[in-house]
């Protein structure tokens, strides 16, 4: 574990350069430049707010637009970084065939690149908070930890996905579809509180209710999004009950994903 981190630390300059390349490349010939990073979550926020006007979603004490925007921050980061990372190995065929450095640098760099866009979106969130007159509490200090956790969750899918994608390009095609489905299974449009009320308080699914809730929270994004909203908007600590199942699954899957990637890595240049 320590060796893995140490090894990556040795390549920090390369990762920074590659991340800079990804960002510069993305916006170099775009007139709107880095503004594209905020257009997606802002548009989604507007659409969801519009939809809510028809269907009515209970958002608690927090105004719905800012609640949904706060959910979209970790969600967009997770979605885009995994989709990008899964294609990162295949997308760098020229480098893979010509030079060796640890291949996990590609998916890791993809995820790191998206952190920059996340940072820009944070500014928008701060603006929204000012607009709604909300002040952050001490609990905002949870945010860095939550980000680390989100990065690990993204890497869990990214590493295995990127490796499989070298052999079967289906993964790169399928993942965006799966991720857009996962969004509905995560508390993005609706707050986690609604699910909690339905399953834990009202026991809507009878004796299966508690089990269903655990299954729902196996998705790490469920815990992450809720905790993020708690820390930034509601001024409370993360809900350990909602976080635990997801954390356990990441803790188990991330090492497997990494080991699979390292095993597959030796054959990238031959197969790609």
């Amino acid at each position, binding site marked *: 574990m320590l060796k893995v981190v140490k090894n990556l630390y040795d390549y920090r300059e390369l990762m920074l*350069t*590659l991340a800079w390349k990804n960002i510069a490349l993305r916006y170099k010939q775009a007139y709107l430049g880095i503004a594209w990073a905020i257009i997606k979550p802002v548009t989604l926020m507007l659409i969801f707010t519009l939809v809510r006007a028809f269907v009515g979603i209970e958002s608690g004490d927090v105004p719905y637009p800012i609640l949904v925007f706060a959910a979209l921050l970790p969600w967009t980061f997770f979605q885009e970084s995994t989709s990008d990372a899964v294609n990162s190995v295949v997308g760098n065929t020229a480098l*893979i065939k*010509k030079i060796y450095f640890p291949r996990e640098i590609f998916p890791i760099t993809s995820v790191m690149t998206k952190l920059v866009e996340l940072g820009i979106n944070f500014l928008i969130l701060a603006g929204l908070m000012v607009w709604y007159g909300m002040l952050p509490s001490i609990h905002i200090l949870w945010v860095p930890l939550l980000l680390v956790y989100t990065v690990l969750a993204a890497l869990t899918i990214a590493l295995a996905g990127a490796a499989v994608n070298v052999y079967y390009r289906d993964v790169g095609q399928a993942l965006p579809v799966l991720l857009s489905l996962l969004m509905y299974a995560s508390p993005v449009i609706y707050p986690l509180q609604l699910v909690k009320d339905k399953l834990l308080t009202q026991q809507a699914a009878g004796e299966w209710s508690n089990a269903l809730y655990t299954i729902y929270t196996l998705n790490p994004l469920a815990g992450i999004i809720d905790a993020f909203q708690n820390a930034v908007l509601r001024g409370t600590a993360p809900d350990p009950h909602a976080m635990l199942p997801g954390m356990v699954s990441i803790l188990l899957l991330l090492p497997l994903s990494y080991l699979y990637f390292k095993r597959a890595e*030796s054959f990238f240049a031959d197969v790609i």
Partner: protein
Amino acid sequence: MPIIEVEHLTKEYRLGAMQGLKQALRNAAARLTDRTVTERPLFKALDDVSFSIEPGEVVGIIGHNGAGKSTLLKILAGISKPTAGRMRVEGRIAPLIEVGAGFVPDFTGRENVYLNGSIMGLPRREIDRKFDEIVDFAEMAEFIDTPVKRYSSGMQVKLAFAVATSIASEILIVDEVLAVGDLAFQRKCFDRMEDLIKRQGRTVLLVSHNIRQVERICHRVLLMDHGHVAADGLPSEICTRFYSENDEKIKRQSAHAARAREQTTGDVENARVELIDDAGNVTDRLHFGESARIRLSFDTRIPLVNPTFGIGIHTTDFLYLATENTHERFQGMTLPVGHHTLEMTIPVFPFLPGAYSVRVGINSGELSHVRYYAESLATFRVLIPGQRIRGNMKEGFVSLAPQWALY
């Protein structure tokens, strides 16, 4: 203590494309029912290769296409893993395998220097320090802030070469990169390589099809053939062997291959060239230093007025070495319709061992029209009586038959 050590290295590839879902299901079913599975065949790109290289050695790797040269370099550079065998590399490797692989077309030259440098493992501060030198060497100062996509391909390669050779690695791997840029730049690259080798004492692995270049730079040459190391030794010996194998191959092919650049008006046909050795036998092997005759026979369908004949000797890669012409010799003659034979006698055959070809031209008429011209009409080998080939025999094509004097 060798810097590179390779033992029984083998690399297998599976031939053919990825199996579709249908084939995969069928194979799974076959496995379940204990029937034989149709596997894709294996191909051995490297087959039990062993050698070791000492620090400071400059080793050339030559061989035909598909002999395993690039696979070997890829494994040494860690890009690909061997199927079996062991290898040990001490120190850092800078691969110049197709320089410029990491160039991003949208980036400027400056940005690409930094990007490529850090891909090759050069710290940023190091690049800052070497930046001017790199740009200077590549002669790119004027264009360094232009996106690389607007560069000519030669400019891209110049820049990439400059970056790659500025890395202070112990081992440099060069795969077919010196054949780039214009002549002046090639020369410069060559000098830079020699500088890296001679003054900085780096270990270099060079793959090239330019055998003359390999012979000049390297201390040692590995000849690869179908995944094996066919020969390992001094450049002059190995290169000579490679040449003669190549010559044989070319000779075999040209026996039935079309005559090169044949042009005829149709008036002259059935041109044939035969070589006759000292003893008067028709042969395809001539001996250096003995007499030889080249006999040209042809049919003409029109009377040839004032004929002139040219007979030349060229290498198998069409470097013209000698051309003889009858000029005014047969002026005023008219060759009637029919079969004719021309013989050229060479009293002392001056060409050194190797493979050579004969080209022929026939002109006639008041304005000296070309009636017939063809290259590679016959290919022959030159041997030395007694098979004693001295070291200098492959450094040139002709012997000056000199007389020496020392004062």
